[in-house]
């Protein structure tokens, strides 16, 4: 099993520009330290209609109300500002930015658990005698004794058979070579919605799910089982 940078087609070049936008890094930085409620605020505002911050403050009384701690309110404000910045870029652009933010967030959280130099973006995984996959993995962790591959989605609707199959095949190919590869879907959506989506897919028990509520597991301490992500769900309906 070996890793390779994905070749850059025209779409990738355009997307690389979005990925490099400081707005993406800023949002990822804020969301890495955010609570689940603040991440939900970001999800809502980035896909909302209203560009009025006051409206969002009303919708999230636990984040902005009188009972919210000052430091948390401050972070909520920063998350809201960043989310509305993305939302204000128009329908097509906001879609690209949301995806890039989930990837950057995943990268940032993983870099809290492993050496940042081991975390990579847009990588292909190659196996002997196996045709390489069409799509690169959004984020990978490449360590001498094990590896992890992540596909990142803004919403549960992005979960589909092709994505699950590619992740599962990579894991199985690694196993055939005696290598250890953890594969997971990172979805910036609730676990409940992800399970609804997964319930109609062919079960892929080897693919893990990291939903909005369990994002911190990406950064979390030592997993109970080597290579497994603490707090992450297996990629199948419960």
């Amino acid at each position: 099993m070996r890793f390779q940078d994905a070749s850059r087609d025209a779409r990738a070049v355009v997307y690389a520009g979005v990925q490099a936008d400081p707005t993406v890094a800023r949002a990822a930085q804020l969301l890495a330290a955010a609570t689940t409620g603040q991440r939900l605020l970001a999800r809502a505002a980035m896909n909302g209609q209203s560009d009025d911050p006051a409206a969002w403050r009303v919708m999230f009384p636990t984040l902005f109300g009188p009972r919210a701690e000052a430091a948390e309110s401050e972070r909520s404000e920063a998350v809201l500002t960043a989310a509305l910045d993305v939302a204000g870029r128009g329908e097509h652009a906001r879609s690209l930015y949301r995806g890039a933010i989930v990837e950057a967030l995943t990268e940032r959280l993983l870099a809290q658990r492993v050496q940042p130099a081991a975390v990579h973006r847009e990588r292909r995984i190659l196996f002997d005698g196996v045709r390489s996959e069409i799509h690169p993995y959004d984020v990978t962790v490449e360590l001498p004794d094990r590896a992890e591959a992540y596909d990142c989605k803004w919403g549960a609707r992005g979960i589909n058979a092709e994505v699950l199959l590619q992740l599962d095949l990579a894991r199985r190919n690694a196993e055939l070579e005696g290598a250890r590869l953890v594969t997971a879907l990172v979805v910036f959506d609730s676990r409940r919605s992800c399970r609804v989506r997964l319930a109609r897919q062919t079960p892929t028990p080897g693919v893990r799910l990291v939903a909005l509520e369990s994002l911190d597991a990406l950064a979390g301490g030592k997993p109970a089982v080597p290579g497994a992500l603490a707090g992450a769900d297996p990629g199948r309906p419960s």
Partner: protein
Amino acid sequence: MPDVQDAIARATSALDALARAGEAVEDEWQYVTDLHAVWRARLVQVATARGTASVEPGVLEAVERASVELEAIEDPHRAIDWLSTYPQIVLLALGETG
């Protein structure tokens, strides 16, 4: 004094309308139906458990404002996305988990 049932009644009504908007995406009809059923059941579960308990100040306003926000959505694809987001906003306001 508004109670949990008031908040959930407003929320389920808005959620039902949102699902109808999302059903316009034919390829996702099953997902929309499933998502609607699951989240609606979760909201009803909260209403059943907490019923006439009064809600904190700001909760009913939060539900109302979020409902207005989603009722402004015309794009059925965005409606599908909100079918997942909206119930979570309601539950968070009520101090419940998703």
